[in-house]
């Protein structure tokens, strides 16, 4: 995983609440067995509409998605995170994220920045008025800035540390394999086995 410290890029204002993972990437695209190449599936139903935000010429090359509340609800598909990252997004900003989506993002290095809905509205306004405005997301300071507007954002402190260090979760856990073994030695015999 690449280290994440500060990211600056242009933003896409997605004026929708409850953007579920079936909208982010429909099930049809989940049949693939690779981990990359999902950019064509991102918002595929909505992208058929020429007025959809990502189809507008002024929002090409965006890397910061600003969305309404309850982003990433529904299915646990990590493909949603892969599709956003494959498309070029580094950060999603919303007032509320679904738990599993936020967890998946943290594992992959996609930053989910939580701000108040009023800050989301402010960012929508700034980006819609001047799409070329650079949006800067500083993970160290936990601050988003755009055209003189500044807001703090929330992120889980452990996820923040892991993103900033670019660390692999499994490698971290395997340092504690002796503790896993000790736990296993004490598991009750009535616990079921699959075979």
């Amino acid at each position, binding site marked *: 995983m690449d280290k994440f410290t500060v990211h600056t890029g242009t933003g896409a204002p997605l004026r929708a609440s409850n953007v579920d993972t079936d909208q982010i990437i429909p099930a049809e695209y989940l*049949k693939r067995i690779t981990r990359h190449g999902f950019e064509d599936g991102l918002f595929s139903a909505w992208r058929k509409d020429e007025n959809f935000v990502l189809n507008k010429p002024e929002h090409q090359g965006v890397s910061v998605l600003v969305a309404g509340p309850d982003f990433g609800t529904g299915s646990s598909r990590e493909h949603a995170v892969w599709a956003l990252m494959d498309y070029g997004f580094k950060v999603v900003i919303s007032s509320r994220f679904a738990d599993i989506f936020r967890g998946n993002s943290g594992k992959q290095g996609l930053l989910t920045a939580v701000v108040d809905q009023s800050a989301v509205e402010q960012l929508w306004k700034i980006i819609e008025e001047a799409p070329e405005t650079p949006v800067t997301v500083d993970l160290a300071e936990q601050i988003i800035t755009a055209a003189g507007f500044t807001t703090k954002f929330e992120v889980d402190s452990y996820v923040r540390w892991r993103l900033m260090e670019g660390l692999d979760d499994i490698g971290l856990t395997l340092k504690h394999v002796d503790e896993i073994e000790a736990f296993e030695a004490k598991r009750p015999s009535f*616990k079921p086995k699959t075979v």
Partner: protein
Amino acid sequence: MGRTLAQKVWDDHVVRRAEGEPDLLYIDLHLTHEVTSPQAFDGLRAAGRSVRRTDLTIATEDHNVPTTDIDKPIADPISRAQIDALRVNTAEFGIENYELGNKEQGIVHIIAPQSGLTQPGMTIVCGDSHTSTHGAFGSIGMGIGTSEVEHVLATQTLPLNPFKTMAITVNGKLPAGVTSKDLILAIIAEIGTGGGQGYILEYRGEAIRALSMEGRMTMCNMSIEAGARAGMIAPDETTYEYVRGREHAPTGADWDAAVAYWKTLPSDADAVFDKEVIIDATKLSPFVTWGTNPGQGAPLSATVPSPDDFTDEVDKVATEKALAYMDLTAGMPIRDIKIDTVFIGSCTNGRIEDLRAAAEVLKGKKIADGMRMMVVPGSVRVRLEAMAEGLDKVFAEAGAEWREAGCSMCLGMNPDKLSPGERSASTSNRNFEGRQGPGGRTHLVSPAVAAATAIRGTLSSPADLVGSN
């Protein structure tokens, strides 16, 4: 201070707790399937890692599989490749896989409870958000992403921060004709699709105690639709009786030790929840969704809401969008909504009691002209049990299609799909735009409402059939 059910199960699985880190939680059972696992196995291979506990891991083929002609090769080459990948991966890493055609095959959340693998007080994960189903036994069942699947395969643990707890207390008895599906849809409409975010829900109260294990599984299954990663119900005699005698259930002294442990799990009387919601069961009636997320629901007897009914601007816009997508007019009676296809099945309502409930309504009746009805058992075992009871004949005589086991029309990943503009009454769990096929429109309902709807052709409950047909 006392602890909640969720806190007790959590605490009993902490491998490591350190300041500034998430808890490292031991996982008792890892369920896998073809969709969310191939990239995880590739990750293991790339890092030269093995599966730590193949004896706590199981695989099945469910999301992609067709529900007809299962003796023939899967027609869609991409689906077939994904199934083949699961077979290669499970063989290479030494995991038991219930392949299509195996009598243990079925939807991942149906097969673990039916074989007794799901028991109280466990931690159960799967790369599928409806893993919350297993909370019905008083376990923590959680959906995880593919990176976490890889993590569990490699370490049998997951680093997780503890969740807050929310009690959902359902007082009184459910009126006749009102099911666990109606109850959970009403709860989601009450607390919203984000209401459970960050929480583990515990359903409790008189109405919950009265539910069968299958009814409890329907409740916990849809916890994720309220935003909660897990939902739980304290184990009781109903739970023990369900588990007893199943092939993976403990026996002899192990059974006694297990029950003694399970009896310690219910929330203590002085346990404090971070939040409590109280629901009056006696006021409920059959409940359906009208919109494009599971929180957009209303009693069957209500009318389609108007954006003006909502004060919150976000809700107004969401309602407007949903009505446009669903092609509905504010103010029309929900009972007048005409349905093209009825789907009975899924991990929410694909168990034997669900099929019995639908068959009871359909017995001796015919579905409406032009109606398509599919009945898809959640597992091969459910299918065989239903056939032994003659339910397949009831469905066929009514004009419904009787299918093989799988996820089927719950999600558009296999041949069972809605066409653009087609409208379904579905016993599944998600009414998102395009969930059952691009452009498809979904109303979430209970099995009894699904069956009555198939007969009348518009959204209906069995009570609407009295005196007709």
